[in-house]
């Protein structure tokens, strides 16, 4: 858990509830530290997490969480972390496809034939996990749905409209009476019109946009990039800070005040 970052995002005391947070990065930066922070923030407050990992393996999340003091494999056993392991499902899909078995019940079967509502299966598998949470004892608690990379869905062949529909469906899951939080990450190529349009549509329905950008002046050893937080609900605000990710922590500082400059 990065205390600097949580203070900046104003979620150190009360977890975001009924909120849709979009986390994006450009090609010069990496936003994964925000996602890792969200997972550990919720788990440390003993709120359950539903992790949909499409970009990185579960092992990666496990190893990073270990460094932040959480054993994800243990948490999975306790039932606090429900995982839709995208990479594993893709592997299973490839296997069953090449062995000519039926693979239509795989949530990622949309990559074989792009028809309408093709991401429905993936949504239903997330919904199933949410229902599992409802049935367990942690009913009144807040929970987190985290999808690590929506841009990978686009790479896998889903059209813009399908991705937008899918995200809106996922959004509806957290607006029910129990409440919850949806965090979606993605990498955006601003040169590509298609992905720019997709980003605008998703950020339109989001409550908070966290944008990670690399420095325009090029790479630096002491500054990784800039983090911009745009609040769209409640009090409207836009804040910018520079950041540096370290092995186990993240340092935030106002623009131009990194330790190497001062």
């Amino acid at each position, binding site marked *: 858990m990065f205390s600097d970052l949580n203070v900046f995002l104003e979620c150190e005391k009360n977890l975001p509830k009924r909120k849709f947070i979009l986390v994006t990065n450009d090609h010069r930066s990496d936003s994964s530290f925000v996602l890792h922070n969200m997972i550990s923030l919720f788990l440390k407050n003993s709120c359950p997490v539903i992790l949909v990992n499409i970009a990185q393996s579960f092992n990666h999340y496990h190893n990073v969480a270990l460094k932040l003091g959480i054993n994800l494999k243990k948490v999975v056993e306790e039932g606090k972390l429900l995982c839709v392991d995208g990479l594993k499902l893709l*592997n299973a899909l490839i296997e069953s496809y090449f062995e000519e078995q039926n693979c239509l019940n795989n949530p990622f079967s949309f*990559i074989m*034939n792009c028809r309408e509502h093709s991401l429905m299966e993936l949504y239903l598998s997330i919904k199933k996990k949410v229902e599992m949470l409802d049935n367990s004892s942690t009913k009144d608690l807040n929970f987190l749905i985290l999808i690590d990379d929506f841009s990978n869905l686009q790479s896998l062949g889903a059209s813009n409209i399908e991705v937008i529909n899918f995200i809106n469906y996922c959004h509806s899951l957290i607006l029910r009476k129990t409440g919850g939080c949806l965090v979606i990450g993605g990498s955006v*190529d601003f040169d590509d019109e298609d*992905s720019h349009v997709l980003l605008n549509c998703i950020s339109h329905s989001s409550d908070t946009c966290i944008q990670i950008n690399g420095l325009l002046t090029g790479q630096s050893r002491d500054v990784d990039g800039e983090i911009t937080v745009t609040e769209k609900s409640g009090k409207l605000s836009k804040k910018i800070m520079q950041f540096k990710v370290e092995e186990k922590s993240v340092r935030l500082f106002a623009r131009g005040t990194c330790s190497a400059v001062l």
Partner: protein
Amino acid sequence: MAVSSFQKKTKHGIPKISGTRPSLRNSQLLISTGVPSLDYFIGGGLAVGTVMLIEEDVFGAYARILLKYFISEGIVCGHSLFLSGGDVSPTQILQGLPAPISDNSAHRKSEPESRQVGAEPMKIAWRYTDLPVVQPAPAVHQFGHYYDVSLVMDSKLMQQCDIETYDICEGSTESPQQFSGTLLPQPYQMVLYKIWRRLKKGNFLTSSNPAQPNILRIGIHSLGSPLWRTISDSERSSSSDSPMFKFLHLLRALLRSAYAVCVVTVPLHLIQDVERLRFESDTVVKLESFAGSDKEMNPVFKDYHGLFHIVKLPRLNSLTSFIPETKDLCFQLKKKKFAIEKLHIPPDLSETASRTNKDPVVDKISHKLIGCSSATKIEIDF
């Protein structure tokens, strides 16, 4: 009886495979790219289970050489290989592999001498006669080798290795294996199928838990060149690159749970959406050769063949990625070495600028000046 809770920490996670070493940073298993200086700049080597993208120079020549080094290193280490491509047939690439430079020849010569010395009874330091002669570490366990591009790899050495090739051009004339539905358009699907079959049959998957795991090195040459495109897929979607992203993502998903590493070279100028390609791969390096460009004439670059850009390094099992000392790198192909070095401008040792006479760029500028004005040279005195 109280039993001490202290236990000897045993490293069971990382199996020992020839030609690999664990990373010092995140305990990932690394293999060499075949170019030791490249290994150094990307943080020790390529992590097993990742995809490396080499963005080709305009002529593609240096990228092909890097791919050959990667394959040669695999042969020397006894790894299994899978090679695919279309622009140049994989068998042709295999025939032109550089030969390793062996240090053994030097050791062999010195061996008999040392024995002769040992045979003579020592008179002064006689206590040391019983000590074993220090043997240099055998070359097999060495990480990263040097290769001689002027020599061709010994075919006997290649026969010992388990090499599979797939030429996408030949493959299209054969009747491809049919599956219900389409995962990917044709050349991509067949390549993915061959890789998947290879991983499964060769026990390269981590789930198969092999007793003696080996590494599969996958090389794909010129992915996304016109030969990889089919008419049907350009009709179906607006972006003709899209099957490539899907292919790379599926490949990465496969490799994440396998003892395999893939190196892909891509002709950059033929691809529309380069950034997305970079998002879909783990390590990305870019070659920019001086051949045919203005930089060839620039005296700053006279010692080098091109610039070497490290575009992306993977974040594996950690929040941060390896950060090299500098990103201003350049490469030079020597007979026995593909050297990647820090770019530095050669020092101007002479006191007066006698260099201007030799300087081709300045010459060029001064020639241009003649054309537009009568003054040949503008001298500024301080």
